[in-house]
């Protein structure tokens, strides 16, 4: 800090600066009206798109006098209609959260223990641009890396590619659904979609493996699920070592031994082939490599699988027959967060193959196709220097740049600056200890966020982004839908404080970086009008029409006259992957065992809370009230033998000696004894977040061990083991031998429920990537 100044000096200086009348009169804050008549009486209804998670439900903001009063679903949106979830409703509390970032901040203290000074946008952007130009000159553009999450980070990613760096990783690829999408690309030539392209409403049978729909709330998907299962009586098979909410609604619950899912799927494939339950005509017309598949899976019998998976062989057979009977109307749900045990791309490949032999692709009740149309854009061309940088692709042939590549390159001094955009890398990337080590090696770090989350503690400059309720975003084409449409996110209220939208940030930065061909549009409105002109509309017109533009889809094989070429090298669904074969990887999935917990330890599993999104919403006042902390599911029998009681607080210690914050026990028969489970995203380490700080357990700190998927480099996280610590003492988990099991719902009395019209689920552009 500077030296104190004398009183005289103080007034001399301040009066000099002040001029004759130095005060701010704040006359712009209020407007005078006749009493009681202030402002607009009416409530404006403004259509936009939710971003409390990345599902992009259509919303209507009810605004009076510039203040948001309520958020509701947009009935014009073909997916969610009038429905939104608890988080969607609580967007108001994100907008008006007093802990939000409000101004650009410069850290004048230490990394991790910042002392912040508010600075102007001009100063912040000047400083950032100076650093970028300096590092580019000294070390090349690739010395700057970007870690991002969500659609608002797309303009920044484009700008950085134009600047010359491809060290850009998004959490949704390597820590969430990248392996699923790579598996689908390899099999069908296209990703699985987000939302997933599943025609649930017409399904006769549905398979969920590890997907806890209902706890993972995506409004339109849950809606369609309920309708399919409760209304239309589709048979639901849930494979999950935990009795999840959706397991409770299932016809079959298979509490599988963790890590053995691929064994189960390959066995189903084998049984279906051996017993002629597959769709022969479809397989002949649309798939490649069936005979090789048949040969490869022939030893995966139900008897073998019973020993591996601890699921009764009779149940496996019953399910295979159910799928055979129901084909092609079988939804093999592709899953979402899929980075589990290390060889996950192959597990999802097995799912895709199972769906394919049942003929459940491009058919009602199975997967459907996306329908894209071309929109004009405001360009920002890629100008990456030299050869593409893609980590060590020899080992991981389908890897995009991952967080792990960037972490490693930073620890090796190849990267000097990070721009972290909307991504809580301390919570979402395993081994946060390593992330912090890498950060401490950096010369400079910028964080763009709406809240002071953990990464901002380590930033040199923090930029406050406008929330989804205060900004435009690039147009969202929902191409992966049976009823495709285009919708626009627009500001429902003006941005609070000095928060700015992503377009402002990148266009101001690109001016300072001298990037003339990046986003030549003047404003985001110009950008959107240009895009919308391709479909003969504009922003104003679209808003008047409720914010949604629909166009015709071609979701099923019928729409192509039964003549469809899959965008794979062979033009067919690749049961045998030619690309994997070329890259020396198994062209057909095999079962490979994963490490079991050693004696005394249990596997740590995690999932989502129905009212939170990762670590993004724990400080939201309403959502915090609904679910303030995570608890730890532990098997009843195990807890009894360990002397543990429901509701008491314990700590966890992992195999690398990391000890957690206290967490509340939930003792239940609904989980296997060789594992524990908790909700992800709690236990914030950022003291700025006054509600979320240290509430619950920061489970990611316990995920110190990772294995990279050999095909695409995703980070498997469910391979960490824990023990319980109570009153300072370590308690071993007992060895409880599991008999093969599998549960079937007893027939119940029919409950009459009223059906509403079927509501489709669809998908979004891959690039908008949320998890």
């Amino acid at each position, binding site marked *: 800090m500077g030296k104190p*100044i004398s009183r005289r000096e103080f007034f001399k200086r301040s009066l000099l600066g002040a001029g004759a009348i130095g005060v701010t009169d704040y006359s712009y804050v209020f407007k005078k009206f006749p009493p009681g008549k202030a402002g607009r009486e009416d409530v404006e209804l403004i259509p936009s798109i939710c971003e409390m998670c990345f599902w992009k439900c259509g919303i209507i903001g009810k605004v009076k006098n510039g203040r948001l009063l309520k958020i509701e679903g947009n009935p014009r949106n073909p997916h969610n209609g009038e429905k939104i979830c608890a988080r969607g409703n609580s967007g108001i509390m994100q907008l008006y959260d007093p802990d939000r970032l409000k101004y650009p*901040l410069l850290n004048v203290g230490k990394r991790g223990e910042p002392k912040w000074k508010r600075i102007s946008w001009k100063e912040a952007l000047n400083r950032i641009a100076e650093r970028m130009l300096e590092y580019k000159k000294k070390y090349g553009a690739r010395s700057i890396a970007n870690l991002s999450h969500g659609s608002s980070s797309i303009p920044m990613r484009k700008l950085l590619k134009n600047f010359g760096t491809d060290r850009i990783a998004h959490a949704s690829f390597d820590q969430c659904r990248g392996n699923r999408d790579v598996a689908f690309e390899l099999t069908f030539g296209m990703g699985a979609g987000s939302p997933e392209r599943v025609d649930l409403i017409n399904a006769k049978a549905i398979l969920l493996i590890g997907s806890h729909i209902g706890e993972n709330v995506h409004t339109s998907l849950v809606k369609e699920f309920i309708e399919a299962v409760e209304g239309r009586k589709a048979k639901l098979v849930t494979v999950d070592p935990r009795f999840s909410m959706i397991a409770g609604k299932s016809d079959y619950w298979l509490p599988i031994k963790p890590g053995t899912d691929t064994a189960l799927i390959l066995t189903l494939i084998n049984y279906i082939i051996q017993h002629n339950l597959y769709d022969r005509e479809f397989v002949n017309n649309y798939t490649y490599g069936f005979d090789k598949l048949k040969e490869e899976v022939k030893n995966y019998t139900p008897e073998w699988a019973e020993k591996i998976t601890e699921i009764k062989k009779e149940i496996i057979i019953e399910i295979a027959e159910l799928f055979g009977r129901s084909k092609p109307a079988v939804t093999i749900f592709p899953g979402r967060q899929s980075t589990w045990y290390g060889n996950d791309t192959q597990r999802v490949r097995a799912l895709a193959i199972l769906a394919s032999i049942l003929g459940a692709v491009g058919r009602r009740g199975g997967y459907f196709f996306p329908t894209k149309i071309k929109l004009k854009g405001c360009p920002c061309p890629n100008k990456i220097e030299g050869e593409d940088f893609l980590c060590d692709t020899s080992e991981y042939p389908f890897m995009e740049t991952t967080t792990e590549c960037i972490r490693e390159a930073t620890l090796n001094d190849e990267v000097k600056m990070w721009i972290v955009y909307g991504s809580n890398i301390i919570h979402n990337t395993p081994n946060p200890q390593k992330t912090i080590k890498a950060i401490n090696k950096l010369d400079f770090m910028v964080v763009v966020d709406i809240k002071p989350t953990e990464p901002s503690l380590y930033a040199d400059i923090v930029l406050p982004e406008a929330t989804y309720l205060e900004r435009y975003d690039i147009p969202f084409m929902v191409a992966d839908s049976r009823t495709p449409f285009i919708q626009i996110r627009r500001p429902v209220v003006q941005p609070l404080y000095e928060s700015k939208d992503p377009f402002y940030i990148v266009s101001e930065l690109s001016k300072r970086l001298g990037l003339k061909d990046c986003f030549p549009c003047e404003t985001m409105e110009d950008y959107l009008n240009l895009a919308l002109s391709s479909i003969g509309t504009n922003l104003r017109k679209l808003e008047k029409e409720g914010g949604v533009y629909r166009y015709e889809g071609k979701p099923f094989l019928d729409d192509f006259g039964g003549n469809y070429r899959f965008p794979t090298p062979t033009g067919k669904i690749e049961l045998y992957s030619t690309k994997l074969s070329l890259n020396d990887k198994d062209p057909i999935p095999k079962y490979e065992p994963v490490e079991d917990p050693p004696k005394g330890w249990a596997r740590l599993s995690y999932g989502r809370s129905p009212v939170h999104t990762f670590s993004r919403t724990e400080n939201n006042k309403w959502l915090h009230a609904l679910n303030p902390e995570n608890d730890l599911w532990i098997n009843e029998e195990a807890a009894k033998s360990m002397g543990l009681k429901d509701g008491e607080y314990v700590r966890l210690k992992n195999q690398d000696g990391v000890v957690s914050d206290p967490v509340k026990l939930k003792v239940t028969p609904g989980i296997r004894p060789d594992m524990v489970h908790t909700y992800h995203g709690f236990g914030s380490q950022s003291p700025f977040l006054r509600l979320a700080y240290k509430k619950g357990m920061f489970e990611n700190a316990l995920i110190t061990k990772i294995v990279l998927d050999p095909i695409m480099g995703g980070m498997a996280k469910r391979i960490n083991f824990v023990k319980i610590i109570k009153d300072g003492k370590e308690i071993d988990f007992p060895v409880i031998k599991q008999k093969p099991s599998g549960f079937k719902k007893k027939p119940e009395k029919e409950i009459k429920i009223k059906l509403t019209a079927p509501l489709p689920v669809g998908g979004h552009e891959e690039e908008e990537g949320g998890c």
Partner: protein
Amino acid sequence: MEKINFYLIFANLLDYPDEKKLSLFERFENIVGLHYTGEIPPLENLEIEYTKLFVNAHPYLPAPPFASVYLNSENLYDEIESFYQSVGYGIETREFPPDYLIYELVFLSNLFNDENYKAERKFLISHFLPWFEKFVKKVKENDETGFYSFICEKINIFLNNRLKELKDGETNLQKRVF
């Protein structure tokens, strides 16, 4: 020099510091009748202290300048805006939520200019002072420069006296411009 009312001077001094705003400090001392005896920190230090107390800080933000942090009411924004509207004021800018300290001081300055002492008294009693007192306590506990503690504490004392005057019906304080 232009005459301005004391609420506006308070608002300037409790807003993000710059040389213009700080030029009012002497007038502030005249209002509260006391000279600041501590050392006056350089502007940059005040900027850092201000950010720490009121904007974002590590390990936590001690004194957010928003009523809703100190009061427990689900409908606070509505209540405040209804009050503003009942006496003929609508918020024109939405840069901050309606419970922002500076907005509330500006609102009080408007009431003062309008000579609407009834509303001024009601707003102080039923809304402003209950949270402002808690806010001042937080500032005093956390301010490392002493500068903001001085300002906040004196404003608090001054406004409590002001309330007494308003209660006693002594309402000719419009003369009190500085």
